[in-house]
């Protein structure tokens, strides 16, 4: 079977014609296979959804009980049959529950990796390379400039700043699913044992992570209660990045704004957002991880979904690997 006959891009998303399903569709469809719970990949309103248990739970938390018509759980590494197409979910190391999806028929195997990373993350299962004919990858950080530093060293920067400015609140912007919990877990790993305050938007997901045995230590709500104002001095407060600009941020004493994101590698990005303490912690592969992954997987061909595809396609060309961009729309380039 030809790869294009098994899987091809449509306005709704990647479509598998023989199996009649979509992967991470951006519009509502009959049958969707979902790689992970980020809102640009997992949308509500599909008829049937197949995903890992944790991804389904996360969708329920975000969208409510009726997030889809019917759900089916995919166990990791267990083969399923969807209308005669073989489907297997493998860990992607992106966020809790995230998976790559291997799609196979008549000797042709395509792996849709979704979003993934290779660096250490105590909050989810690590990425496993799956040999395949076509490897479909994102290229969010697909430029040779992206060499993300060791996340542990980045957490060290935050701890150092807490020492230098012990009276100032440290506001750490981090996306609600995955990054926030990873930052908290990293702080705990470094022996930071004071309570960590969290924005209301993070509460449910943090609770869910804890229910899945990810230990986040003592978390307190960052409420407006006047008596708590002094507690925020020198405290770490984790919040969605957009809340820096909200009136919400006014309750803190002389805050320092930190932002945990792969984009913080670029100084101008930090400056534009008014970030004083950039923490380069990414849930996506950086350039060396991306190119190493392609070497590990050893695919016959590479398709690039979103991000900075031109540089990755150029690299594949230099390596003698056929590659092409899919020009999929609807996925956030900026989210990390």
């Amino acid at each position, binding site marked *: 079977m030809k790869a294009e006959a098994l899987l091809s891009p449509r306005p709704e998303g990647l479509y598998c014609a023989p199996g009649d399903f979509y992967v991470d569709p951006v519009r509502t469809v009959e049958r969707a296979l979902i790689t992970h719970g980020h809102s640009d990949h997992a949308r509500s309103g599909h008829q049937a959804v197949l995903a890992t248990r944790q991804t389904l739970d996360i969708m329920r938390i975000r969208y409510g009980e009726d997030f889809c018509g019917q759900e089916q759980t995919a166990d990791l590494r267990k083969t399923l049959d969807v209308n005669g197409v073989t489907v297997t979910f493998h860990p992607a190391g992106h966020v809790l529950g995230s998976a790559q999806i291997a799609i196979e028929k008549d000797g042709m195997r395509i792996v849709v990796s979704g979003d993934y990373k290779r660096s250490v993350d105590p909050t989810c299962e690590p990425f496993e390379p799956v040999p395949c004919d076509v490897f479909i990858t994102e290229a969010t950080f697909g430029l*040779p400039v992206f060499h993300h530093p060791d996340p542990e060293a980045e957490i060290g920067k935050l701890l150092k700043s807490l020492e230098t400015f012990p009276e100032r609140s440290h506001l750490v912007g981090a996306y609600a699913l995955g990054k926030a919990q990873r930052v908290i877990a990293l702080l705990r790993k470094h022996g930071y044992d004071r309570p960590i305050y969290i924005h209301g938007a993070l509460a449910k997901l943090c609770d869910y992570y804890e229910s899945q045995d990810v230990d986040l230590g003592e978390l307190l709500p960052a409420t407006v209660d006047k008596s708590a104002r002094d507690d925020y001095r020198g405290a770490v407060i984790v919040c969605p990045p957009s809340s820096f600009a909200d009136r919400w941020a006014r309750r803190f004493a002389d805050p320092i704004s930190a932002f945990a994101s792969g984009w913080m590698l670029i100084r101008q990005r930090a400056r534009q957002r008014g970030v004083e303490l950039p923490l380069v912690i990414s849930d996506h592969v950086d350039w060396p991880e991306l190119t190493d992954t392609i070497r590990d997987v050893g695919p016959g061909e590479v398709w690039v979904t979103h991000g900075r595809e031109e540089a990755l396609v150029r690299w594949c060309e230099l390596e003698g690997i056929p590659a092409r961009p899919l020009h999929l729309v609807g996925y956030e380039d900026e989210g990390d």
Partner: protein
Amino acid sequence: MKAFSRLLDRLTLTPQRNAKLRLMVDYFAETPDPDRGYALAALTGTLEIRHVKPALLRDLVLERMDDTLFRYSYDYVGDLAETISLVWESPEDGEIYEPSLSDVIGELNGVGRSDVHTHVRSLLDRLDTSGRYAFIKLATGGLRIGVSARLAKQALALMGDVDVTEIETLWHGLDVPYESLFAWLDGKGDKPELTTPAVFHSVMLAHPVAESDLEKLDPADYLAEWKWDGIRVQLSSDGAHRKLYSRSGDDISGSFPDILEAVDFEGVVDGELLIGGTARTNSPTLTFSDLQQRLNRKTVTKKHLSDYPAFIRAYDLLFFKDRDIRKAPLDDRRARLFDLVEKAARDRFDLSPLVEFDSWEHLDRLRKNPHDPVIEGVMMKRRDSAYQAGRVKGPWFKWKRDPHIIDAVMMYAQRGHGKRSSYYSDFTFGVWTGDQGAEMLVPVGKAYFGFTDAELEILDRFVRNNTVERFGPVRAVRAEPETGFVLEVAFEGIARSKRHKSGVAMRFPRISRLRQDKLPAEADRLDTLTAMIDARS
């Protein structure tokens, strides 16, 4: 190098002055000699390091990297030093020994011309990303971190619990890497002795005068001078060594060879640096925007020297030859200054003239109607005052001309930093231009202070409720003849500017009042502003 590059990274992103000071104090306290001394030199602009050309760096990168991929990377990042620091891949079996800042400087300054390539490559291999960035910025001369030499000296003062004027006085007698200075600040050594001549002496500053002050002062005790709109300088000469310093002690001799060449006296003169001709040559004094053509230039062209000739309007003498006369009364110092200026080059030095007055009311009238547009008020100095470093209240006062005021319309707002990061606190404002019926707003300036905290709440609420468009951190707000927010803007001066769409640039604009009682249609027109410029020239 790691500590230094981390410090730079934090300083560039830290807006608050106090936080910058804290970061520097911590660094100086934790970093050993001679690294902290080299860092201090880098921050204050006294570091000497071999210049590396960007082309050489680009060649080195392309030895290891596909040029198409490099081009994509550079296009994305936009800054060569940053791109190279990020794309550089060190060999995996390379040395793991991380060079210190002094190693980096020593290595670069020590190699011969033909070895520069090899050493720069090897340094880039041994440094981490931040270290590479700092190194490239140092070596290409593009280090900009928003820290003035004065602020770095403030940090030293804080660290050693001494007065910053002590450091300024010592400063030009010290050499990189400042080991004796740090030993003194650490409490492990004596205060360094001043040995080099032509050093900087901290300047005496004036207090703004208030109505209530005047009642208590006797006009007979004071002399008055015009306050000229140039920059305060100190000229220090022992005959062989001549230096020109800004009021904060930065050595600006390099930008003003015309003045230094004309010095044929010994002494330390306090005065205003201006552009144009001296009163002694009967030529007019030019404006501050002319002076800006000469400031912060590494090289001065002949054209600059002839189009914008510089001179000093002297008003005080600190040293008469090599004798310190700062304790002598002002009247005596001025008498000596008079003699000195009389003999000095006519086209480069004149004496700041006295303003004759018999009462404060009289002086007030003179202040409001100066005879020269380059005058921005009057100075009042006690005739018997000694020359004391710093801002002492009583002996010297400044009485500025009232600021210009216009009504403008808020057009854009941007979030502030630190405490103000959740407030829209930086405002771009505009005035009307165009024919009747086809009027439009043109931005004329930006201001982020002048209002109270309570007023900021009002401004912020207006921005949030009236946003029409967003551009990253900037919001465009409703600004129509009948709907919008009128701001009263006060400013010190105005000049023509080619860089601004409106063609005008204000000096020191701030928001003086919120005019919620006015409609945007009632705000000023651009013609009003251009008329202010024409009135001055």
